[in-house]
């Protein structure tokens, strides 16, 4: 039986059967998550699965059943994730959200999680539409994209990647639910990164947003995907065996000593340039395309726990003698 680095089979990383529609992009993402978590070797008891409300937010039930899960309230998962991380900094906090949960009701919490650089992985399963309430626009719908009945969206789209980069995000990637080859290494790099990792994953809604006129349908996405770079994830101390032509690859070392290797696709791109990332997002959007790959990473920013100088012991484990004012110091407070 094949096991991963922590001695577990792939079976352990599975969850309950999905209750989402057949063909939903979210189900593909769940499968990629299972693969990424298994290959990375996340210990289930150290995984905290967090989510808000919506189709996307149901998915934490569909992977790593052994792990603790927290399905919170709509748009407020970032705050719960922040609290969980502060309480136990040993946990890998993995949040799954959607475009409504993130860009509409939850935009404020999303922004503040990013600016605090809470150490968590934040996946946005982005389909531009409200699924559970049956097909209303979300705030990530592109201008001109239509509902099933032909109504076009006339309001500016919120680009969750561009916004995150503007807010000081330290890891921002965009991918497509159908592109496991790109998504799995991106997820693993996100697990390794210390700080908020944003993964905006275009994930078509087969029921409400897969028609002609939608810019988040399978067909549209396949035709308009501009792949920026193809990532490989190399764990710490693992030998880099792949040969690349000089100048065709960017090697970024992450905080724990792992590496993400970004193979150049069509153009030179520096994933450590904030301005470069914003430029490519705007350029491609203006052309009706969307760009995928690791858009931006900055490994030099302390995460919230570091900034707060938290003790390495999880706060939840501290005892009376570590938390209470000593008897000898108490009386002096009342003179």
């Amino acid at each position, binding site marked *: 039986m094949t096991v991963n680095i922590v001695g577990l089979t792939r079976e352990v990383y599975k969850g309950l059967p999905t209750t989402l529609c057949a063909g939903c992009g979210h189900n593909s993402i769940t499968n990629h998550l299972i693969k990424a978590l298994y290959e990375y070797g996340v*210990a*289930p*008891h*150290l995984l*905290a699965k*967090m989510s808000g409300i919506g189709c996307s937010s149901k998915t*934490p*039930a569909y992977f790593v*059943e*052994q*792990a*603790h*899960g*927290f*399905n*919170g*309230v709509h748009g*407020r998962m*970032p*705050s*719960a994730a*922040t*609290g*969980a*991380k*502060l*309480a*136990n900094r*040993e*946990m890998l906090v993995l949040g799954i959200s959607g475009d409504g949960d993130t860009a509409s009701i939850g935009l*404020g*919490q999303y*922004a*503040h999680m990013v600016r*605090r650089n809470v150490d968590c992985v934040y996946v946005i399963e982005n389909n531009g539409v409200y699924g559970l309430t049956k097909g209303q626009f979300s705030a990530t719908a592109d201008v001109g994209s239509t509902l099933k009945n032909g109504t076009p969206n006339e309001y500016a789209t919120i680009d969750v990647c561009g916004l995150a980069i503007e807010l000081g995000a330290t890891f921002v990637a965009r991918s497509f639910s159908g592109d496991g080859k790109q998504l799995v290494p991106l997820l693993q790099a996100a697990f390794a990164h210390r700080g908020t990792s944003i993964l905006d994953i275009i994930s078509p809604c087969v029921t409400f947003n897969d028609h002609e006129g939608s810019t988040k349908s399978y067909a549209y996405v396949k035709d308009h995907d501009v792949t920026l770079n193809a990532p490989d994830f190399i764990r710490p101390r693992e030998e880099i065996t792949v040969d690349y032509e000089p100048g065709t690859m960017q090697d970024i070392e992450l905080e724990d000593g792992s590496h993400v290797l970004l193979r150049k696709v069509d153009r030179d791109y520096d994933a450590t340039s904030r301005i470069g990332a914003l430029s490519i997002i705007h350029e491609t959007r203006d052309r009706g395309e969307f760009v995928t790959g690791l858009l931006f990473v900055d490994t030099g920013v302390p995460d*919230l*726990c570091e900034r*707060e*100088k*938290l*003790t*390495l012991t*999880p*706060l*939840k*484990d*501290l*005892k*009376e003698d*570590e*938390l*209470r*004012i000593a*008897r000898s*110091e*108490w*009386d002096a*407070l*009342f*003179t």
Partner: protein
Amino acid sequence: MHQRVTNDFTIRVATVNGSGSQSSNLVLTNAIFRLGIPVAPKNVFPSNIEGLPTWFDVRISSKGYQCRTRDVDLLVALNTATWRTDITGVKAGGAVIHEATYPVAGESLRDDVVYYPVPFNELAKTNFSDGTLRKYLLNMIYVGVVAELLGISEADVEAAITGQFKRKAKAAATNVEAARIGFTYAREQLTKRDRFGLERMSGQTEGRSFLDGNRAAALGCIQGGCTVAAWYPITPSSSLCENFIALAEKFRVDPQTGERRVAIVQAEDELAAIGMVLGAGWAGARAMTSTSGPGISLMAEWAGYGYYAEVPAVIFDVQRAGPSTGLPTRTMQGDVSFAYTLSHGDTKHIVLLPATVEEAYEMSMEAFDLADRFQTPIFVLSDLDLGMNSWLTQPLPYPQKPFDRGKVLTEKDLNKLESWGRYRDVDHDGIPYRTLPGTNHDGAGYFTRGTGHDEEARYSEMPDVWQRNLDRLVRKHETARTAVPQPIVDEQGHPAAILAYGTTHHAVIEARDILRNSGIETDYLRVRALPFSPEVAAFIARHERVYVVEQNRDGQLFGLLRIELPDHLVSRIQSVRHYNGVPIDAHSVVDPLLEAEREPAVAAE
């Protein structure tokens, strides 16, 4: 001259905020306290940084009454804008120290008080050249004048000033000089014509010091083992978290490494604050947030989540006057019924109701035990009067008990169990067992959700499963009735009784004495938590008439009692309410009771 009044009167200082009057007011308070006389300061301040009227009452009470008085005996009038109204709040036979340039003649002014005109502006101008400084020092001149008139020595005032400006020797010296100008002026220019005086006494203030409820609650958070705090600044609760930050800075930072044993986040809003607290509570840390009414409104959705998904949390609500933005700097017991059922659907929370600084501390500490024990949000309902005013307090007792972390299954426990279910009622008290994320056991994990779930924490929409879970939550609530702080009862078998909670307590103490002097004896029960203890209904059953006194318009606790009491007891309770934004005074209790008790209503049984 009238009969001399010693150690039992109230001084009101009317000033403009942002003028540094707070320092002077505290110096006066402390100077009186140094004489061994109980003092209760009440700050009635505006929602503003500079330029609006503010009043500071110093209640001097040899018996130790700490509630506010409606009218005052001695007015220090330093605000020209409110001077004409302020003077109407002085009792007949009182005294008024005022800026000499205010007109004393005129129809609206009174001839039943003594006037002491003092040229405060002139004195400040001639003695202090710095314009900004002058504004502040003018207030310290009044302290000297008052002290001289009441018989406080220069040495006591000087000591109070030194105490106030501990680390600022230069400021202390200038302020001492300003007070001395007041002393000198009063001695040389004023003839004592009022009846008020102070005399050193003993037996009341020994061992006590001034402490506000917000600081006491912050001390409770430290000693209660709170490690995660998330908050959004709001009056009147901000100083609770600010005190927690200051205490954590001192007692939760490793002096060698600088590592912290606490995480404090200033959140983007109250929704995020409570979300962080629930995330942390779920992950096993003791976590709290502190807010006031508007914040409680915003927290409603998460509060229901905490109740239904069963996540520990401590929420301090330092109540202020509502509805809406209301009077942000005034007090009210306005959130009692709202907090009790905060959130949509069937929700019932545990609510603690501290009345004193000691209780603000003890209930704060206890809230963390109750949150863990009952796996639910615990609301601690303080108010502006308790939270922000200084109260004479004995040193707070050092905690005697270890933390009660409640029913948490560890890896070792799980190894011994064949199976467990997150929401099973194993002990028939409605309280299930939980595991914490990070527990290294295959079976430890479970899925926490606000959607319908069964005993094993699995998603369910089945009618019987849903109802069974709601019924278990009721059982848990019933278990809480006798586990929360129980009522305090003072009972001698009188037919009439008072029922109150929170800071209303202080007015009730004085009111019962006044009523006794008028021939009306009352028993007294003070509610200290919701859900009601069975003791509450039993107490009401033993009395013919029970007056429920509280500081809100709608009689919120009265309403809760009417819902929960057996039908035959409902007619025994009557509602007495005070809701003008300033702390309740004894007469707001006495007057309605006198009226009702003189012609006792025929019981409608």
